[in-house]
């Protein structure tokens, strides 16, 4: 029996000829990641366990992104703890305010992750890097501590669901509409413990920003990882960017999949996930009577340049609806600068939106856009759980940047017409 793409990467990193679903392996890691919320717990565990040093200072990334620029004194103390650990162990990929970005937008952009990598991160959206053909999965802080010390992690080899994509997305849809459609189809535990492997002719029509968004939300279907094949789009993206030479792995022709799901991209419509689970999906056009108080365009899911471009194309020369607060958060400093250079920033302000420095902020109800009781937000973020963006009686609707920006102009959930 052949192996899936994920299984091939895992086998190579475990030093094995082949692996099968369910097998427990120890694999060598190319990168161990943490942020300002998960790293302090990992540092405490690392010290408690009495490790002398890290396995490789160049293969650990610590990104301060959840609560920076620091939202309060306690957050500042946590950032300080991360900073001191990074300094003590000479961590080369340490990103503080001024250099930082939202981790899952920043690390691909900076070429810290590459094709064929085996990566763990103490952040559930670490599955994002499957977009560049890596095996990458979220873990907790103790796994991060062990990974930093040993450069190894244990895994149960996952089985996989194959998504055979065909056609091309309509103009008013993006990768977000595809992943929300899939989560609506299979449910929030539809891929529990499994890989989501995206293949088919439709793949080549998806940009890297779309692929990053799609893999980012694999965890929202319970998946261990999401992964795209390495093709021309990947190679072009990694060229001149990746700091390490990547390795191209391909699924075997006779690989075993638990399920194969075919999706014609041209048939998709703008989709919104209604409260309080990402699987509660409905076409945007059916939700026109839902009035909104806030719009958030940003996050590790949709804070990339194409997302900013979608917001710009919708908002330029127009005004956001009265009574709607629009918060736009470019995910990295490079994207932030590009928004200024291209005139997006000015257009956003003219439209009545605000622009924040990169932060996870409102996505997880940290700061920078918290909702009051009874308020409603349409957001390009990834979770709409109870209380996720603020009060337990507030509501979050998940959508693409096109849909979020179109809704900002009307004050109601609106299907974008591009």
């Amino acid at each position, binding site marked *: 029996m052949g192996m899936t793409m994920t299984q091939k990467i895992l086998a190579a990193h475990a030093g094995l000829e082949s692996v099968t679903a369910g097998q*427990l392996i120890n694999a060598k890691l190319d990168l161990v990641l943490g942020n300002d*919320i*998960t790293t*302090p*717990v990992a540092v*405490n*565990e690392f010290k*408690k*366990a009495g490790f002398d040093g890290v396995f490789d200072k160049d293969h650990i990334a610590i990104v301060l992104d*959840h*609560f920076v620029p620091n*939202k*309060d004194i*306690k*957050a500042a*103390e*946590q950032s300080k703890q991360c900073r001191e650990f990074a300094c003590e162990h000479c961590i080369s990929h340490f990103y503080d305010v001024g250099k930082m970005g939202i981790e899952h937008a920043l690390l691909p952009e900076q070429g810290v992750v590459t094709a064929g990598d085996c990566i763990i*991160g*103490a*952040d*559930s959206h*670490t599955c994002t890097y499957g977009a560049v053909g890596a095996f990458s999965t*979220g*873990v*907790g*802080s*103790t*796994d991060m*501590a*062990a990974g930093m*010390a*040993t450069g190894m992690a*244990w895994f149960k080899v996952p089985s996989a669901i194959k998504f055979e994509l065909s056609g091309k997305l309509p103009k008013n849809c993006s990768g977000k509409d595809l992943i929300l459609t899939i989560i609506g189809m299979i449910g*929030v*535990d539809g891929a*529990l*413990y499994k890989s989501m492997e995206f293949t088919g002719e439709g793949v080549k029509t998806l940009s890297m920003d779309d692929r990053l968004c799609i893999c980012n939300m694999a*965890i929202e279907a*319970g998946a*261990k990882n999401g992964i795209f094949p390495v093709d021309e789009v990947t190679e072009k993206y990694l060229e001149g960017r990746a700091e390490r030479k990547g390795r191209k792995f391909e699924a075997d022709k006779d690989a075993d999949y638990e399920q194969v799901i075919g999706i014609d991209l041209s048939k998709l419509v703008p989709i919104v996930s209604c409260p309080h*689970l990402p699987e509660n999906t409905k076409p945007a056009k059916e939700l026109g009577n839902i009035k909104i108080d806030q719009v958030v365009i940003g996050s590790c899911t949709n804070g990339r340049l194409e997302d900013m471009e979608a917001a710009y194309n919708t908002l330029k020369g127009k005004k956001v609806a009265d009574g709607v607060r629009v918060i736009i958060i470019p995910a990295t400093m490079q994207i932030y600068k590009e928004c200024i250079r291209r005139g997006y920033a000015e257009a956003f302000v003219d439209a009545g939106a605000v622009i924040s420095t990169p932060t996870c902020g409102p996505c*997880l*109800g*940290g700061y920078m856009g*918290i909702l009051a009781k009874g308020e409603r937000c349409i957001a390009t973020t990834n*979770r709409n*759980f*109870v*209380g*996720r963006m603020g009060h*337990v009686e507030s509501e979050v609707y998940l959508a693409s940047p096109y849909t979020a920006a179109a809704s900002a102009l009307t004050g109601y959930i609106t299907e974008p017409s591009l």
Partner: protein
Amino acid sequence: MNAQGKVFKYPDNVDTDVIIPARYLNTSNAEELALHAMEDIDTGFVKKVEAGDIMVAGYNFGCGSSREHAPLVIKTNKVGCVIAKSFARIFYRNAINIGLPILECPEAAEKIDAGDEVSVNFDTGVIKDITKGLEFKAQPFPDFIQNIINKGGLLASLKK
């Protein structure tokens, strides 16, 4: 090893944002975090829970964020065991890594009700609902994972 206590019952898809809301994650102090456990889904949980009590839930318990703070606040509130129909994978891993006992048993999770007195034997995987006089058998852990649990968590298991 055993646990016995009264049951707190929860539905499917209990996410880590309701187990410990992110607005409190500006600290990694377990005692401080534990004061807010479950507050968005079960107000007053921390006042009602007693050492050894048992959480019983539906499918996909602990979905969402990778925050280890989630199993940590449950453990710090001295919950004896979490029984669920299934666990989200990162929560499952984190619970094992930090030594919070968890058991997957769909039948027990279906039939046990809130307030029941339940005992769990971790060596045999036998779950007893003393109130109802019912007995269930949880799926055993693979040896590899049992070894991590026996040694007291991942970091302890790495020590030679």
